[in-house]
């Protein structure tokens, strides 16, 4: 009811528009963007109907990276799932691992040691910085093209992101897919000298964020992003948008603060919000979040408590993790929003596998905003809006 009223009043674009009722000056042009397109952030396809260069209707088609992860997880044991979900949101693998392990821990009633909780928080915040850096770089490419100023921004952001990758490599031995979280704790302890290195990297990045802001602080960037792709709070909530996109629409909601997990209730942090709901607001929120995460990471590395990384009864073999029955929904805040894991226990391998394993991906919800937002915008705005939503196709399609 509410949805239909908003479409009819013209507040939101109409995803269900019947094109035969639309009268254009000339014929509508059907433009197919993707699945292989320089700025669809992976394999994603949007079919646009254009009246001149103005979009009348947009129909997104995800699923070009549908790898059947949920089906695969039904065949694997809980411990084996961790490295699989790394590949879902491949820009923030740490948080994917945490999400699945938190769900299993909740179902089994396992308490995670305090040091592991702090380390998880630290890794999550570092990963958030890395992810937002990657987003900022690719957003630059979307606006400025592969042969232009955007690429320069991209290179700067990747330069700093590499440093965080180095930190993770130092901790886990792997640059990309870490598999460092396990049921009940963490696998890899902090190596000697790592804390110092983290602090140096954080200082370096913090200094350079000011540079990116300076690079983007000019009227062209503002004209390209301000009042473009406005998502009002009501639409954002109804679509299930979370994370920076929701906070850019003026909704003060962050799972880290509002439903604390890990060690978030023990540390002090601010949640930046903006009220524009447009691409510029999303940019503002992400940059502010990056700064805040760096501050938090510094506090976390200083206050990292001593103690064991796994509980009293560490998990040695995969079949030790068995859950007879029960369902759980556990969510955490990734750089893209609420990443939830819905597990129905009691599956194959004598209850060592889930019966149904569902990942609630923030990116899928973000992308589903496109048909509501795009109508009325220009072709050039598609890349800006899609970029500002920060979708990761591995997570959208799973």
């Amino acid at each position: 009811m509410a949805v239909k009223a908003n479409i009819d009043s013209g507040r939101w674009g109409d995803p269900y528009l019947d094109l035969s009722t639309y009268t254009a000056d000339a014929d509508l042009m059907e433009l197919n963007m993707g699945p292989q397109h320089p700025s669809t952030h992976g394999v994603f396809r949007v079919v646009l109907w254009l009246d001149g260069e103005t979009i009348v209707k947009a129909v997104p088609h995800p699923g070009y990276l549908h790898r059947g992860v949920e089906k695969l997880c039904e065949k694997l044991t809980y411990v084996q799932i961790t490295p699989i979900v790394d590949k879902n949101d491949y820009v923030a693998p740490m948080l994917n691992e945490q999400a699945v392990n938190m769900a299993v821990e909740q179902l089994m009633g396992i308490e995670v040691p305090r040091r592991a909780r702090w380390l998880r928080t630290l890794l999550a915040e570092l990963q958030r910085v890395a992810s937002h850096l990657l987003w900022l770089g690719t957003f630059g490419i979307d606006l400025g093209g592969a042969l232009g100023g955007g690429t320069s921004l991209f290179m700067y952001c990747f330069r700093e992101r590499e440093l965080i990758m180095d930190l993770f490599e130092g901790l886990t031995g792997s640059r990309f897919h870490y598999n460092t979280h396990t049921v009940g704790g963490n696998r890899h302890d902090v190596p000697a000298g790592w804390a110092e290195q983290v602090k140096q990297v954080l200082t370096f990045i913090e200094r350079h964020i000011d540079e990116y802001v300076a690079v983007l602080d000019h009227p062209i960037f503002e004209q390209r992003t301000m009042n473009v792709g406005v998502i009002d709070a009501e639409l954002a909530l109804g679509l299930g948008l979370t994370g920076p996109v929701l906070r850019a629409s003026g909704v003060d909601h962050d799972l880290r603060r509002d439903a604390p997990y890990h060690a978030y209730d023990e540390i002090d942090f601010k949640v930046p919000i903006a009220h524009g709901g447009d691409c510029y607001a999303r940019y503002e929120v992400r940059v502010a979040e990056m700064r805040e995460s760096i501050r938090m990471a510094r506090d976390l590395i200083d206050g990292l408590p001593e103690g064991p990384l796994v509980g009293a009864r560490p998990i040695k073999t995969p079949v030790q993790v068995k859950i007879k029955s029960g369902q759980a929904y556990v969510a955490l805040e990734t750089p893209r929003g609420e990443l939830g894991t819905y597990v129905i226990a009691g599956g194959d391998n004598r209850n060592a596998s889930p019966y149904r394993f569902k990942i609630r991906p923030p990116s899928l919800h973000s992308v589903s905003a496109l048909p509501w937002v795009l109508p009325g915008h220009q072709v050039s705005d598609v890349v800006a809006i899609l970029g500002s939503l920060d979708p990761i196709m591995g997570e959208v399609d799973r």
Partner: protein
Amino acid sequence: MTADERQARLAAFMTERFGVEADPWPDGGPIVPVEQHVALAAALQAELGYTLYVYCVASHWPDETPKGGDLIPEHYEVATGLRSVGAGSHVAMWRVSVPVGAGVPTLADLFAGADWQEREQYDLVGVVFDDHPDLRRLMLPEEWVGHPLRKDYAIETGHLPWR
């Protein structure tokens, strides 16, 4: 309001309005009759402030005879979650159970996000959502046969000429 207070209020609300037993409150939320699915979501959204659409999870349960019990016929279970925004954020979750062939009423009129989530569950699990404005496959190609997350779908099913 903390999450626990919200949970207590939710339980009271659901007992009072929808006749759901508050004790014991199962994991994944109580099972609600299909007819009350939309009414419950609308009430939660409008009255209790559960405005953020979180998830829609369908699961397939084939015929099963538990030890010493009666046959549980093949059915789908659709779990839905809505979240309250702000401090003490809390997820209101409930489930509906439908036999194969019957549909679940859609929430797409209340929550714009339900559109895609329900399409995805239709695509992968095969649950039909009644009155959905645009019920097509979301992940798999239009020409695909079968619903992969059903328990009778083999994971290694081939698809010539590609695999």
